[in-house]
């Protein structure tokens, strides 16, 4: 058993027994990538905070059901993904007056460039985000996890419950689809 697996095992068991410190540690160590999963599923940054809160609430409610602490990451992924999907379905049923922020407003440009260049860059980013959002989920999720977390194929495979080869194939497909969608449209 690796040191990491031992540490995970101990933290999860402690959290299951009600240790607040262990619970805080789980959030600190996993919140960032959980948020990336939420973003990968929903494609909407303005929903991430709310959904993340719901995810962690569900985690604490159901942590006792995690029998094998070594499967924590894949289990967290499932909770995060299902929560994000549930909230997305629920939101779609409601009437929305305004589009999500990143569809409505240009992304903040922090480079200090001139307005024309900033607008061009934000338009390009918007176009790319739309293309990523329109990817099928099985391609979009590994692609987003790869870019937001700098994860290796093995790490993505562990969380998604796939083989490394499948992760690689899905990333190949994601890139090929993005290239097709953006062909001729990109003036970077």
């Amino acid at each position: 058993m690796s040191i990491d697996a031992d540490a995970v095992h101990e933290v999860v068991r402690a959290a299951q027994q009600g240790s607040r410190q262990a619970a805080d540690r789980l959030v600190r160590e996993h919140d960032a990538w959980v948020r990336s999963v939420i973003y990968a599923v929903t494609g909407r940054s303005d929903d991430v905070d709310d959904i993340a809160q719901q995810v962690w609430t569900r985690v604490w409610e159901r942590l006792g059901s995690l029998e094998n602490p070594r499967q924590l990451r894949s289990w967290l992924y499932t909770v995060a993904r299902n929560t994000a999907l549930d909230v997305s379905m629920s939101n779609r049923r409601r009437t929305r007056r305004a589009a999500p922020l990143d569809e409505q407003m240009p992304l903040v440009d922090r480079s200090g460039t001139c307005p024309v260049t900033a607008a061009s860059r934000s338009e390009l980013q918007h176009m790319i985000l739309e293309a990523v959002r329109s990817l099928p989920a099985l391609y979009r999720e590994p692609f987003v996890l790869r870019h937001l977390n700098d994860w290796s194929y093995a790490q993505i495979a562990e969380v998604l419950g796939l083989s490394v080869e499948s992760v690689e194939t899905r990333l190949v497909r994601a890139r090929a689809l993005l290239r097709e969608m953006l062909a001729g449209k990109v003036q970077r």
Partner: protein
Amino acid sequence: MNTDREQLEHLITRVLDGEATAMERAALQRRLDADPLARRLFEEHRALDALAGEALRAAAGCPASRRHLQLPQLPWVRYGLGAVAAAAAILIWLSPQHRPAGPAREAAPGHASVANWLRPGALTADAIAPLPASFERPQVRVRGSQQDYIVLPADQPGTYWIIEVDREQTHAIRIYRDY
């Protein structure tokens, strides 16, 4: 599905994701050296991947990835060097001592700094050193033709040098200022 094309796409993906072995990187290098279409495909994937990563991290509020700074030194450097050398030659031609006498209205301000950008060895595609806060990554425009446009910041804020490069021939066609 073209098996050869699929194999190339897999190889490119593994290299871009830092999963390729040394042998695989060498194999890709040989392929890109020999095949202009493969080189074009690699550059398109590389640029699109960088843009997508930047857009996603900006949308999600994540810090910049360190992985893009650790790309193996592959055809981007070698390919870019060809364009760089041609562009540098044109910049030298554009430098004050070479320009014909006349109004200095279209002088090449900051040409020395642009030439620094283009000096072989100044390319830091795979450097790991931290970048200054004011660093602006050069952008590449692709218009679905064989021309590429390399956008480099000039000295004056809001102005840029545009280097139009023929990808198939790997030489600079022209350089002009833009805003």
